[in-house]
């Protein structure tokens, strides 16, 4: 009897759905519903209508914050690429032992809570910190404060997100067959042309992966910009937090959250249509 039952179930598509059901229900109740709640609040709080969105799209402050967020995310992505590419290159063109050490360092950095890393940058860039001290040594008498500026938050974000870029580029770069490079060199490719014709096309998927990840995470970054950034140059996530915590403006905060979500999903959607999302975190 039991056997017949399982047989019956197994042969249809019910069995996998039975296995999926608990999680599906869970995600519906504790993930989808809160998300819909945000959507709902954006058009009902404080009064029904699209007033909140009107504010977001016409208010000078909000537009500036969105632009600033985009600009910062782009800048951070580019900086991560500038940091990540030479590092990945170094790792794939040095002794295995040294590559291993660098890999360990990067993994360590990756796994260290970004609160810890944010704090570390506060120490490094603080007024009693080593970098200010260095600048004073050079002879600049009264250096400007580095902390709580766009510079400090960008620098910390690059440091926090660079591992994503490095690991993605490294994973494709180490797969490049050295024979390929040697044969390209034997055909006369040097320096720039070697990079343009061999390295760049072969590492492009890693760059794309890393860039999308860094960009998307940066768009919604809350902690580091709030702690290290300039209060006058907020990013979207920080502003949303402000609206909720300080002004209890749930409607406006939700509307910005929805816009942020839509932008994030558009970026991921473009990536998905070209490469497939499953590759992004794989």
């Amino acid at each position, binding site marked *: 009897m039991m056997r017949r039952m399982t047989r019956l179930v197994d042969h249809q598509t019910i069995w996998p759905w039975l296995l999926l059901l608990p999680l599906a229900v869970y995600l519906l109740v504790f993930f989808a519903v809160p998300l819909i709640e945000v959507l709902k*609040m954006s058009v009902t709080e404080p009064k029904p209508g699209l007033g909140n969105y009107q504010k977001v799209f016409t208010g000078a402050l909000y537009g500036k914050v969105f632009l600033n967020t985009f600009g910062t995310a782009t800048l951070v992505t580019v900086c991560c690429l500038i940091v990540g590419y030479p590092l990945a290159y170094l790792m794939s063109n040095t002794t295995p032992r040294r590559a291993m050490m*660098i890999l360990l360092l990067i993994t360590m950095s990756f796994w260290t809570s970004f609160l810890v890393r944010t*704090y570390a940058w506060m120490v490094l860039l603080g007024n009693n910190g080593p970098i200010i001290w260095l600048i004073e040594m050079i002879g600049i008498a009264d250096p400007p404060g580095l902390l709580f500026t766009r510079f400090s938050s960008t620098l910390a974000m690059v440091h926090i997100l660079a591992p994503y870029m490095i690991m993605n580029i490294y994973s494709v770069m180490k797969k490049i067959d050295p024979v390929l490079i040697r044969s390209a060199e034997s055909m006369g490719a040097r320096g720039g042309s070697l990079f343009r014709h061999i390295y760049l096309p072969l590492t492009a998927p890693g760059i794309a992966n890393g860039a999308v990840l860094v960009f998307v995470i940066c768009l919604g970054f809350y902690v580091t910009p709030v702690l290290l950034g300039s209060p006058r140059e907020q990013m979207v996530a920080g502003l949303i937090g402000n609206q909720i915590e300080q002004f209890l403006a749930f409607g406006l905060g939700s509307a910005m959250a929805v816009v942020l979500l839509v932008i994030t999903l558009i970026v991921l959607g473009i990536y998905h249509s070209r490469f497939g999302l499953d590759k992004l975190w794989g």
Partner: protein
Amino acid sequence: MNTFVRWLGYLFVIFIAAPLLVVVPMSFSTSSSLEFPPPGLSLQYYEKFFSDPAWLRPAWNSILIASATTILTMILVIPATFALVRHRFWGKGIANLMMMMPLAVPHIVMAVGYYSYFGELRLVHTHLGVILAHTCLSVPITFLVLSANLKGFDRTLEQAARSLGASPRRVFLHITLPILRPGLMISALFAFIQSFDETVVAIFISGRGAETLPRKMFDSIRQEADPVIAVVSTLLFVAVILGLLAPQIVKAVQSALGRSARNASE
């Protein structure tokens, strides 16, 4: 060109390493401000951390919440991963996407949602609320790790066990589960870390009742930059190093044990 890129690489190695290097000395500082290098060395902030309930309670909360999140996540994700890796069925693509969605939504957006939704359910400032939210956020990474493991699982092992006389239930208990154990442990570890490190949602919903360590750290950095934060950072950092070196340590211990066992048997 080549050497230039290499030197640039080494420069960035320093960039990556520098912040990790300042934290540990800071924790032994005598100064109450962010002074580096520290003017003197002491253990006063360690003492403070280990005696101050304002720090110990969040640490304990975080361990509790992360453990519960791990268990709940595994209970939900294990069957779902088996379904998604081993079966073909209608709606599989959507199901796959559903598993990954929590990774695609910025945490600040979820934080706003939970703040309001859990407010209605009276779950704000409770352990349960944070656990429920963290479980959602832990699903994708746990699923990714586990499904990679399950995909690499050689199913002929199960066929072999069947042909050798094991019922499906016994195949699962004797073969599938033991072989998948390392993968299960790693994915559980990922779920734990995801919850333990999660900051944004915790800032919004953990409140005073279930304050987590990241929330306490965030508040501390924002308000006074209490040097105890360096102690916490050092402890977390040491945990990461131990975690990364754990496989090597286990291997070393095993080989040492194996050697002594062999010696004993001879």
